[in-house]
Structure formats: structure tokens, C-alpha cells
């Protein structure tokens, strides 16, 4: 995986155990999110972003279960999914900075990280919007003889939307090798999930009743997420969809501009993190020197990424109209040859 190579450049050595790999990837995701938040506060980024800080066990556990040739679609809170699949920290942060070295050339922003070359087909800003994309892409790979699969991440909020039941039904009907991942972070913006669905695990019961293999995992245990992820990925490779719900915690507000103190106790997220931080929980099983080596490598990777992102070129304004159509000769205003 790309992220592990980046860490190795900073002499972290081999990540010998699953715990070390999870620890490293989760720390990298968290550090990227923290760097984005920092630079946003410093007004280097405009617009919105949705932090996955605290939810890293889902992205990391699932990502480690995947191969390079697998496909991932994601949601508006997808920076961790991107990094886990191999989008570089530089490409993620540069996209926040609207630079041409961003993963979408600086024209997508926080909710449109896309990197086809690593299989991160990408985020969509429409809740539930990427589920069909993932299943159709996975189905095509299977049709062409590959056992690659797709993962479609969505938050719990998406499971109140009709597209969720439809997408799983259709994937099952056409036997698309797609793993639907419900990242249940407890909140759909300001709406508490348990009020909508019942306690964590309830969405799994719904999907289970659709006769699709489904598992529920407590995301405080990243190793458990990884192990269950591996089991389901192996099952999906046989050519069927499956579902996993990972209970995580949204430590940060819905978005950087969201006044979450209006609907939940102040510091609720920080307090949860103090008690249950899934990254800290892994420390007991990793040598202290190795923890430090990973920490300093992660920090170096993120510093480097921040610098490269800051130094990236801004898109030419004359580039704004490029690439709406693939068809030769079709420019934004019809037939002008601006391609």
C-alpha cells in the first residue's frame, strides 16, 4: 500500500504485525485530518470539510483487508478512506488547498477526492450517492474475469435514504462483489442515529433481513474491524455482496463550520476519545520504540505533504471550463473547440 511506502521513506522499518499496521495507518489518517483542521483554522482553506478524526478504525481495518486492485467509493467524510486506499497525504491535502497536485487537480475539494490509479474511485458529496457506482464497477470487474471487489463506504445517515436498500437489493440481484460499509458514527449531522435506527447494530439487522451477509463490529477494536473485514472481503470475492456496520464515534462536529455544541454536550467528542481512543488501545501491543518510530515517520510524511501541498501550483483560471465532455469538439458552450 502506498501509505506504508511513504512511511518507509522515513525509516519506520517493517510494520510486522497487524497492530502496527493499523496503528500506523490510523495515526496517519488522524494526522492528515488534524493538519487539515489546523490549516483551515489558519484560513489557508476555504469552504467546508468533514473530519473523520476518531473514526479511523473503520477506514484502516477495511483498507488493510483490501488489495491494490480493489475499488473504493466513499462519502463526504472520506479522507481516511482515501489515505487507506493509497491516495497520498499530499494529494489529499493539496486538494483541500485547491492545488493542481491535489487528487482532483484542485477542482473537487474536500468532498471530491478521486484517484483512479490507486482504485480510490472516490468520494461523493451526495449521501448514499456512491453505492451504485461501486457495485456497477465491481460487477464489471467480475464480468471481465477479475476477483477484485469494490467497497462502498457510507455513513449511518445514508441508511435512512432509499438508495441504500435499493443498492444492496440490486447488488444482490446481479451478484455484484461489493462490500457495503456502514460507518455508524452516531450522528447524521445533528440527528442522533440511535433515535432514527435504534442502537448501533440495528442497521445490520435490517440488511440481514434482506438475506445479505451482514456483520456488526464495535469500531473501538480496530483489530476486530480488520478481522471481520478480511472475512467479509474473502466472502465478497466469491462474487456476492456483503455488509458491515462499524460503530465508530464522530469526535468532531459534522463539519468545520458546524456549531455542534447546540445539539450535544461540549467536549463530548474529546471525552470519548480520552476514554476509548482506538489508536491508544493498540499501544499495549506495540513496542514503545516502534510506536515512536511510527509517530515520527507519520509526522514527517504529513509535514512533507503540507509543504508540497502549499507549494503546489494553483489551477490556471483558463482551465475552469476544461473537461466537461469527453467527446471531441464538445466544449462547455456546445461546439466550440476548446479541448
Amino acid at each position, binding site marked *: 500500500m502506498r501509505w506504508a511506502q511513504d512511511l518507509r521513506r522515513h525509516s519506520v522499518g517493517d510494520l510486522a504485525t497487524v497492530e502496527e499496521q493499523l496503528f500506523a495507518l490510523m495515526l496517519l489518517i488522524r494526522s492528515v485530518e488534524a493538519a487539515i483542521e489546523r490549516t483551515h483554522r489558519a484560513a489557508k482553506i476555504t469552504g467546508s470539510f468533514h473530519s473523520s478524526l476518531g473514526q479511523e478504525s473503520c477506514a484502516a481495518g477495511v483498507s488493510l483487508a483490501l488489495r491494490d486492485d480493489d475499488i473504493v467509493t466513499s462519502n463526504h467524510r472520506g479522507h481516511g478512506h482515501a489515505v487507506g486506499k493509497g491516495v497520498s497525504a499530499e494529494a489529499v491535502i493539496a486538494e483541500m488547498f485547491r492545488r493542481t497536485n491535489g487528487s482532483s487537480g484542485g477542482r473537487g475539494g474536500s468532498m471530491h477526492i478521486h484517484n483512479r490509479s490507486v482504485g480510490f474511485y472516490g468520494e461523493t458529496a451526495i449521501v448514499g450517492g456512491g453505492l*451504485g*457506482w461501486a457495485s456497477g*464497477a465491481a460487477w464489471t470487474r467480475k464480468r471481465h474475469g477479475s476477483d477484485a471487489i469494490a467497497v462502498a463506504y457510507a455513513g449511518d445517515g445514508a441508511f435512512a435514504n432509499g438508495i441504500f436498500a435499493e443498492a444492496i437489493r440490486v447488488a444482490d440481484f446481479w451478484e455484484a462483489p461489493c462490500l457495503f460499509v456502514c460507518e455508524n458514527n452516531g450522528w447524521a449531522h445533528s440527528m442522533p442515529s440511535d433515535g432514527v435506527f435504534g442502537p448501533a447494530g440495528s442497521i445490520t439487522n435490517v440488511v440481514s433481513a434482506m438475506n445479505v451477509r451482514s456483520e456488526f463490529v464495535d469500531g473501538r477494536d480496530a483489530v476486530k474491524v480488520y478481522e471481520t473485514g478480511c472475512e467479509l472481503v474473502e466472502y465478497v470475492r466469491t462474487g456476492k455482496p456483503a455488509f458491515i456496520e462499524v460503530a465508530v464515534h464522530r469526535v468532531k462536529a459534522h463539519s468545520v463550520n458546524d456549531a455542534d455544541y447546540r445539539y450535544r454536550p461540549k467536549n463530548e467528542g474529546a471525552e470519548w476519545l480520552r476514554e476509548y481512543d482506538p489508536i491508544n488501545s493498540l499501544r499495549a501491543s506495540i513496542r514503545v520504540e516502534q510506536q515512536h518510530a511510527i509517530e515520527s515517520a507519520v509526522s514527517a510524511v504529513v509535514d512533507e505533504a503540507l509543504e508540497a501541498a502549499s507549494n503546489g501550483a494553483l489551477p490556471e483560471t483558463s482551465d475552469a471550463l476544461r473537461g466537461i465532455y469527453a*467527446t471531441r469538439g464538445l466544449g462547455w458552450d456546445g461546439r466550440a473547440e476548446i479541448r
Partner: protein
Amino acid sequence: MAALRFVDAVRQALADEMEADESVILMGEEVGPLGGVFTVTRDLIERFGPDRVMDAPLAEASFTGFALGAATEGMRPVVEIMFSDFVMIAMDQIVNHAAKLRYMTNEQFDVPIVVRLPGGGGSNHGPQHSQSFESWFAHTPGLIVAMPSNPSDGYWMMRHAIQLNDPVIFLENKAMYFGAEQEVADEPPADPWAAAVPREGSDLTIVSAGRMVGRCLSAAESISTRGIDCEVIDLRYLWPMDVDTVFTSVAKTSRLLVVSEAVEFCGWSGEVASRVAKDAFTSLDAPIFRVGALRCPIPVGVALEDEIIPTVERIEQAVVDCMDF
């Protein structure tokens, strides 16, 4: 090629593209053994098998999204939405995803998908089965909007649409399916995007698309007995829109009427009118007239429907009014 009805021409185009390219697949409700409610895909499952002619559950949003996903991996799905009205359920996948994916991913993904929309009035299916949404799609960056008016275009425009690497909204007026046979041209038009001029004339230009082209031709024929010689332009594509052909015609006739089956208010006919008013203003000897559907749901039954959707008589009246100005 052969004389075909519109329904047979579209079917023939699908079959010929499927024959030519294995990545072409059909998806939609009842497209399999039933052959589609309008028989457009009849017998294709027998010929190409259920792996390529895929009956979908009643889940427009999901199977359209699925088709989009297949398209990003190199398939060329042709999605049938049974009645165009049902496309509303799939609008997010079409407008927010298919139309934008190439642009917002910085050209990492193409979406070669055709969404077939049997729509419009004339078949007496009532308010939720008779709408004309072409203006909505023409308004959306990232989409190509095809609206054939006759069997030959039904064939060649469908073949063209399937070969394009962009999402195409293909509007099929269902009232045209079982109309008269027409000889399908042996070759595609030299310029696939150009508007057609099915009737030349010198007094007034009528611009239209889809089923309304036939009504415009009837109106032009009928009014010619009163000494008014109309030119009729069939736009064929609402996006990209061939306004040059319209300009050329208006330079000759100096009068313009635009006829749409879509609701007139905020409809595509206003775009034609505005372009001509701005860029061909000095050619005009009269105000630009428009005839479109009234801003009213389409009621069931011919008598009421004719109050809403442009009839030959309303088109003729507009020609007379424009000439009398």
C-alpha cells in the same frame, strides 16, 4: 437501409451496436422477456442473453447508479426508464453523478451511458406518464440531450449516442413508436450534431424537436395553401444546439416560431428565441413567437391533452400571428 417504424429503428440501432461492441448492455425494467413496455427491446434477450439484456428490479436510482459504475469500468450501458416520468427517481445519479463525474474527477472517469426516456404525451397515460423533461436536461452541464423526430434519426442518433463517451439523455416520444415507416438512411449524417431542415421555405422559420417536428410539418403544409411558405428546422439535439442552422434560416425568412412539447415557460424554446434575438436581431421583421405546452400537468384523454400540448392548429395560429405582425 429499410423502411422501419420508430420503435423498430431504435431496436435495430441497439441490436447493431450490441453486435458491434460487446461492452454494450441494456438495463431496465421489463427489458428482458417482455421486451420493454413499448417493445423497443423485444427479442433482444433471446439474441444477446440475460447477461447483456438485464431486467432490473424497480429501482431506477440504483440501476442507473449501477450502470454508471459499469460505464466507468468500460461498459456502455443503455438504460431504459420505462416512462420518462420515472427518471425523477434517478435524477441524483444522472445530474449529480453521471453528468459531473468527468469534470469533478479532473477527467479521470468517463461515463459512456445512454439513458432512454420514452416520454411526452399522445398515448393517454395521464399526468405522471406523459411529461416532457428535455429542458431540465438541456440545462444540466455534462449531459448530451438527443431528441430524434423520425425513424432514420432514431436509428443513427441512437448508434451515435452509444458510441459517445459522455452521458446521453435520449428522448423518445412514445407516441412516435408505432407511426409510419420511414426509410432509414444508409449512412449517418455527415455532421452528426447538425440540425436538419425537413422543409425549406422562405416566409417563416419554425424550429422544433422530437414529436412536434411532425406537427410543425403538418402545420406548414396546411398553411402553405394560404400562401405562407414555412421552413421547418428539426434541432435533433437540444444540447449541443445547432443555432447556426437557425441563424441561417432566419436570415432568409426574417421570422421565427419555436415549438416545443416541453412546458413553454423557462423551456428550451426560450433559449432558441434568446439566441436569435441577440445574435440575429437585425434579421427579424417580427417578434419571435413560441408555442409550447401550457404550464399545467398533462391530463389523461385526447380532448384535455390537446388543450395543453401544442396542436397543429395552435402552431398554424402562431404562424399566422407572426406573419400578421
